[in-house]
């Protein structure tokens, strides 16, 4: 049985997802963000982090659920292709992330009632009786809005 560590991310309003342990780089408390016009509602702010401007993604808004109080930002890193320089982004969180041990036996289908997850998640696992999608960070941050 293979074991994998994951971070459980709480976006508020019972909206949750996970990323791999090595994908979450930094947690920022009450960060200063800046509005960028003409960007989609779910990603219209940037944050300055280590001399980079990172897009700030509001997953609750992206999934069409109510955006609550999200005082934290999770800085994440991902690669477009294996071996390439990492890319960075930030996710708005309602609470600090929680570390999990996930096994293959927990794999389950994506939440059927929410079709948005079909393109935003790469897999899903069950945790405490509920499905937890695993974010496709490359698609989330590497695709231009339609």
């Amino acid at each position, binding site marked *: 049985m293979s074991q994998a560590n994951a971070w459980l991310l709480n976006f508020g309003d019972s909206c949750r997802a996970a990323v791999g342990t090595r994908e979450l780089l930094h947690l920022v408390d009450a960060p200063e963000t*800046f*509005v*960028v*016009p*003409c*960007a*989609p509602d779910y*990603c*219209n702010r*940037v944050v*300055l982090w280590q*001399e*980079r*401007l*990172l*897009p700030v*993604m509001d997953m609750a808004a992206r999934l069409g659920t109510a955006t609550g109080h999200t005082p934290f930002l999770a800085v994440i890193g991902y690669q477009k292709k294996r071996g390439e320089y990492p*890319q*960075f*982004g930030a996710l708005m969180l309602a609470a600090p992330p929680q570390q999990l041990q996930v096994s293959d036996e927990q794999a389950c289908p994506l939440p059927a009632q929410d079709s948005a997850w079909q393109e935003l998640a790469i897999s899903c696992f069950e945790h405490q009786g509920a499905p937890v999608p695993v974010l496709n960070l490359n698609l*989330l*941050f*590497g*695709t*231009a*809005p339609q």
Partner: protein
Amino acid sequence: MSMLRPALAGAGMNAAAVLKINGLSLLFQQGEVRTLESASDVDGREPMAGSVGWVNYLRQRWPVYCLSEQLELQDEVPSSRRTCALLAMDNGYAGVLCDDASIIKQLAGHRHEVPTAMKTAVTPIQELLASEHGLLCVSSANQLAAYIEYLIHAKKA
């Protein structure tokens, strides 16, 4: 994403004009802002579609637009829009109402690409510049004019 480039290195924008619209700072090459007028000089009679009035320059009148912080067209002019910046485009001029306009003689900071996840096909924002003046959204008169034209057509449709 976020390719760092010094603002002065080959940017061709040593002097720039910044138009403030609420919390938004729009940055243009200084030469693209031809004149600054008081918003009270804008003639609000019979405005063109999408515009809020006219401003006179070189014996002609040019449309004046009022934009929100999110760069949406506004029919009602907020009281904070006290200045009209006349932008020079390839094919004429257009006025943009702003709260305040200032000149930066030497730009210092780092330019960043607009992140892919934020870059809509029609955005007039070319780059973002993190500077001592805050986050500046780099645009050009021609791009902003094309964007306004897009908004007007979208409103009609």
